[in-house]
């Protein structure tokens, strides 16, 4: 009798797990989608967006940083978690200034597609309309803080992949913001290069390489489907 690979149960599906797996990394390898924004297999987890919250044996945990345990029952596609994901997305939308029709990232934006998949049709909460000046000082990369969702992917990519520590998190509470390491605090004076991974890892349109706007037309983008391809 051969040894059976250890698995956990995700919404009724067995998911094989390997040592060091989190719930999300094991599910991703098995091709099962747990909605997420701030996780990437390229960098360490920040557990900040909470979109990947699942019930592990009934307890809400962030799937991106919670070790997968053999035999565990994990629920993701429940009605209450669907509502929770919708509320979290609405919170992120009202926290910043997100105008999809005018955003170069539209069609490639993970926040947008998650909201679409969650069935979000309205903000639900009042828009906070923050005032965040755009930083276009860098010759090759635009920083548009109005779209930043504080996922920390750029922070971690710059630390862990590029070895540059260009970004950090500042402030606290609703005034939390992305800091740029440079004497002026502006991107143009920082060590960021357009070739850095940090310049491309942003899931939304907060960090965008310049001069490639609409190189791929709307309708031909990553999250376009038969309905939007036109």
């Amino acid at each position, binding site marked *: 009798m051969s040894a059976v690979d250890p698995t956990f149960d995700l919404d009724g599906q067995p998911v094989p797990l390997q040592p060091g797996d989190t719930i999300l990394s094991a599910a991703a390898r098995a091709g099962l989608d747990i909605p997420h924004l701030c996780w990437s297999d390229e960098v360490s987890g920040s557990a900040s967006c909470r979109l990947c919250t699942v019930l592990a044996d009934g307890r809400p945990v962030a799937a991106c940083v919670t070790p997968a345990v053999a035999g565990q029952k994990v629920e993701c596609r429940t009605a*209450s978690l669907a509502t929770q994901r919708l509320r979290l997305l609405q919170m992120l939308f009202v926290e910043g200034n997100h105008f999809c029709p005018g955003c170069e990232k539209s069609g490639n934006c993970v926040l947008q597609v998650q909201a679409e998949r969650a069935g979000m049709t309205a903000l639900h909460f009042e828009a906070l309309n923050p005032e965040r000046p755009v930083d276009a000082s860098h010759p090759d990369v635009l920083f548009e803080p109005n779209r930043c969702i504080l996922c920390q992917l750029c922070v971690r990519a710059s630390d862990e992949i590029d070895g540059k520590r260009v970004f950090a998190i500042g402030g606290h509470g609703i005034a939390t913001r992305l800091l740029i390491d440079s004497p002026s605090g502006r991107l143009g004076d920082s060590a960021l290069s357009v070739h850095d991974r940090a310049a491309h890892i942003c899931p939304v349109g907060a960090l965008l390489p310049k001069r490639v706007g609409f190189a791929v037309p709307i309708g031909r983008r990553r999250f376009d489907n038969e309905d939007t391809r036109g």
Partner: protein
Amino acid sequence: MDAADSDGPARLAADAVMARWRRDPHALVQILRDTQAVTHWLSRPLLAHIAGALGLTLAQVEGVAGFYRFFHTRPVGRTRLLFSDNITDRMLGSETLLAQLCARLGVAPGEVDAQGRFSVDRCSCTGLCDQGPALLVNHHQVVTRLDAARVDALADLLLAGTPVGQWPAEWFAVVDGVQRADVLLGGLADDAPALPVVLAQSPQALLDEVAASGLRGRGGAGFPAARKWLACRDAAGDLRVVVCNADEGEPGTFKDRVLLASHADAVFDGMTVAARAVGAQQGFVYLRGEYRFLLPQLEQVLARRRAQGLLGPDACGISGFDFDIALHLGAGAYVCGEESALIESLEGKRGTPRIRPPFPVQAGYLGRPTVVNNVETFCAVAHIARRGGAWWAGIGTAQSTGTKIHSVSGDCARPGLYEYPLGTPIAQMLDDCGARDAQAVQVGGPSGTCVPAPEFNRAIAFEDVPSAGAFMVFDRTRDLFEVARHFARFFAHESCGLCTPCRVGTELVVRRLDKLAHARGAGQGSAFDIALLHDLDTALHSGTHCGLGASACNPLRDTLRHFGAAYAQRATAPQFQPDVDLDAELSSARRATGRDDAGAHLHTDTPA
């Protein structure tokens, strides 16, 4: 000197401070504190200088400076006054006194006067609720028992430029206020065995006694102390750390302040017992910044204990037991009471709770297995190690052994500290403190439970109403909606900003409650707004990164349930009203057209 004057003197001050801390980047929070004590505020060039000297980036240092409420990255007055803003301070009239002082000084709250002499603002609870209203001076001293006369005299001294050292000494008086003492507040008996005698037992025997006592952590979570110690002892690693959590930030809690002021030896005894039991070499007391005034006397006690051989190499005469304790100060961040955030702060970082696992007992301070326990927990250990686990287990209830100290404040005749065996009914405590006509008690602080009058027969115990030690009494003249709104502001102010539900959700709760309170220029509240509050409560109870977010809606949930009428009476609009003030939105159009007639105005509130 001011950092703004020129960078030279400020840099020299920072250099001296950094030399004292051996340019250790893990001491960044201490370095910023000590530097600011000289320079008053932390300018960006100064932060860059510190970053360069410590091998950190400017953004990292800026991120730390911007995280803690007591660090100023903009110019502030040479004398900085922060009014304690717990609900109990407000009930004692703190807002009127704040307005009085601001009027006398000619400065608005949150601002600095034109000459840069003083700035006045609010801060979270300073832990002086039984002798408030209180204020914090230069993040260093506290003035208690404020009243109109004292504020007037304070304004005179400030305007005359009298240095703080020459203010009347009685203003700084902080009393213990013990109203009911049991074993902990009673102190160690005169004939109690000395610590070296106690530590003659094997580490395993010490651990066994704590296990037999059933002692659970007094910081709020109630985790069994012995299980935490065992996990730390058995974790892989050469160096181990014992941390005393003296970041007593839960509004309405002030028991640890008294234990540190009057029973510091017992607390340090408990830490040393823990160190012996788990095999730790390094000890820290993380003292909340608001208790800075306790620092000199605590340093004195530690120096005496080193001289007595109770700390240091071969501590307590035990060959090879090298254990010492260092004091670290917080800088105004409630979330640092969470043990992993506290460890981040000890390491000189933003106080963001860590991702767990690993737990601190596996990998805590600098990755070393670390035990973090509350001040009161260590104090209890000092007694248990001498009198045995069975003695402690004989007090209280089966699941909640021993005594618990309660910080009683609010509407009662005799506020102060009350120590009872766990399992004591709330009604008895109300009786003892002279609370008449109470309609509710906030047990365990804002993150705890709001217990309404019909439930006063319930007992304080882990299995009934658990408590981290706050006991705030509200009589029938108080509006529980306003209490909940005050606590909502507290949580939004103290959110670390990491996770979406807490960062955004706490702010949305505040705005919705403000709308119901008509505190913003928005429309009247309706049933829709109350439904939305229920939505937010569900979202924050469904998966935040740490306990702060998870408990941020507890006051909202409890008061919605028990005092729904206080909400309903504010939700008077028959239908939803917009959140924005439509009339205010038209102001730019009015300016552009030069109109201000009735037709150029809109009214958000539709007639009922």
